[in-house]
């Protein structure tokens, strides 16, 4: 039978299928962090069960961590307690932890790929919906709840129904200034926030084939924003080159034999999908969101639709926008470049290339938060820190930061923030904050002009 890339990986990880029920799916790598793991560890303790495969678990501290003075004790007492529990739980169960200050510390979906923990053909889970990021490597990766975290602790497996299969094709040539973030925001704006529910999505077409690994991660990261459990892209030479030489990637002959297997990981011709959509790259322009879910997106030069869904009036009232309004020239006081969507070195290179020699507008607070210590080191090594600081941007230490505002990095109530993160939900970046999702280039251009600008006019 013809198989999709998703079928090939899924089927090889099924331990057993429960009759009329879910599959017992074996998990190669389990990533954990401080916020969704403590109750799972407690569950195990209460039942007197030990962690089954601690070697296949990697932990990091990222969600609630401060982005300043990471060498000092964490000020927020609840965050500090959560971090302490993570440390203790990892010690007690022999789990590798890249704690605050460790050279490998970072946002879970940034640090695992850059360390070679993420490899093609794997199954990966994490108590975080943006686990879909790792699908960029041709990996089945998806977010799970805390009950499932404890299930994986206990058995290295999850019980899950095999999702249906969806393919999104984008072919053609992307316009100048259109980044992977624009591509995925465009797709979600066309398909809506629940079109992917019940599905796993494969992204195919020359646009994805030509993307860097960083770009593919940005795309797969936001699969969950259209409801899909995960997204994946067939591994190719770009993938192999990225993985090669990474700290935990196979080396030498092992790498070659792994690569020979990875090369088989592609959808067979004529394999069936339950649903398929195709888009033309030429139709995509730099995108922004105007509402309170990621599907409410328009091109930056566009206007807010006149007629929306039932809940759109509520969203527009929250955002302070009107149907039919264009957002160009809208004054913006905050920009945030960071999060598991856009905090990799390529994102900062793109932003820096635009910013170099320019100054941020006086009204703007511009926050740059690298995804990991390794990315922070690269920013330093490539001289990007000077570019950002000379332009008046604030460069912080790594973490999830203002993407979900669990730490002190919050956008004040009523303020607009052009953000490279993944969610524009009400209050996501702080109570009352108003988020406009965009690419790193759009965020950089906004910071410089102090308002939403059609920067493509200035691109060579």
């Amino acid at each position: 039978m013809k198989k999709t890339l998703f079928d090939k990986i899924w089927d090889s990880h099924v331990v057993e299928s429960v009759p009329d029920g879910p599959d017992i799916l074996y998990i190669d790598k389990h990533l954990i962090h401080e916020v969704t793991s403590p109750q799972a560890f407690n569950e195990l303790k209460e039942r007197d069960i030990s962690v089954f495969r601690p070697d296949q678990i990697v932990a990091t501290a990222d969600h609630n961590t401060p982005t300043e003075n990471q060498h000092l004790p964490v000020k927020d007492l609840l965050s500090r307690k959560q971090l302490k529990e993570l440390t203790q739980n990892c010690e007690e169960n022999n789990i590798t932890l890249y704690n605050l200050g460790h050279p490998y510390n970072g946002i879970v979906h940034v640090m695992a790929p850059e360390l070679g923990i993420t490899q093609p053909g794997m199954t990966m889970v994490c108590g975080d919906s943006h686990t879909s990021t790792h699908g960029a490597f041709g990996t089945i990766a998806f977010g799970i709840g805390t009950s499932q975290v404890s299930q994986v602790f206990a058995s290295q497996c999850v019980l899950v129904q095999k999702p249906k299969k969806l393919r999104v094709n984008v072919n053609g040539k992307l316009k100048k200034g259109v980044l992977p973030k624009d591509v995925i925001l465009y797709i979600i704006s066309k398909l809506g926030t629940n079109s992917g529910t019940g599905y796993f999505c494969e992204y195919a077409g020359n646009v994805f084939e030509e993307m860097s690994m960083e770009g593919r991660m940005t795309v797969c990261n936001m699969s969950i924003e259209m409801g899909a459990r995960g997204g994946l892209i067939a591994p190719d030479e770009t993938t192999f080159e990225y993985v090669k030489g990474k700290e935990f990637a196979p080396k030498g002959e092992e790498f070659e034999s792994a690569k020979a297997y990875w090369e088989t990981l592609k959808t067979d011709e004529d394999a069936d999908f339950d649903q398929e959509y195709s888009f033309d790259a030429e139709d995509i322009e730099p995108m922004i969101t105007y509402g309170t879910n990621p599907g409410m997106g328009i091109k930056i030069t566009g206007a807010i639709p006149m007629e929306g869904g039932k809940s759109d009036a509520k969203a527009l009232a929250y955002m302070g926008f009107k149907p039919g309004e264009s957002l160009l020239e809208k004054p913006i006081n905050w920009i945030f470049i960071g999060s598991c969507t856009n905090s990799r070195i390529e994102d900062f290179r793109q932003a820096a290339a635009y910013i170099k020699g320019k100054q941020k507008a006086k009204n703007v607070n511009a926050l740059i938060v690298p995804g990991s210590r390794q990315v922070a080191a690269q920013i330093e090594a490539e001289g990007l820190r000077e570019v950002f600081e000379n332009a008046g941007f604030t460069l912080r230490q790594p973490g999830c930061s203002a993407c979900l505002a669990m730490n002190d990095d919050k956008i004040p109530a009523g303020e607009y923030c052009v953000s490279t993160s993944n969610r524009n939900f009400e209050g996501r970046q702080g109570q009352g904050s108003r988020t406009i999702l965009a690419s790193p280039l759009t965020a950089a251009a906004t910071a410089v002009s102090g308002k939403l600008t059609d920067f493509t006019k200035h691109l060579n």
Partner: protein
Amino acid sequence: MEKFITLTDTAVPLEIENVDTDQIIPARFLKATDKSGFGENLFRDWRFDNNDEPNPEFALNKPEYKGSILVAGDNFGCGSSREHAAWALKAYGFTVVVSSYFADIFKGNALNNGLLPVQVSPEFLDQLFVEITKDPSVEINVDLEAQKISIPKGDISESFEIDPYKKTCMINGFDDIDFLVSKLDAIKEYEQKRSQKLEGTTAL
């Protein structure tokens, strides 16, 4: 896990679509290391204003609406995977959530916590909203065994789907950890076969 077989109760109508888990429980309340206390912060920023005063317009604050059934708009529970959302709904006192669509991760989390997600047709959902707002004391029956949701008084009913395995779990109060731990031998066998394959050939 508590058993769920059948329930008859009044309902709270939440006529909002795409309710994301950030609204159900905002991120700043995720710093607890146990499962208690989330109920008081359920829908925190919708239930209370900036001065922590209850918002009288919000359905959960309206005195006429009570009960352990939440009836919500399309695509309930989208966004973050936080299971805290299911804990918060349960702790507040809900046992059933009805919607025309549930996000995948939320649905799984709910089922793992004895909170039954009942997916109905958009038409039936509209009917429920009409009936509840017309008469907030109207009772809704959810029968898991028969997979049926109805308003006995109005003679309105619809069947709903549920994974047969999950149905058994809910009815008997079983959870997935017990089941998976009972499968450890098969899991070890799988691991062995897989490592042999990995060493011997490149095709898995």
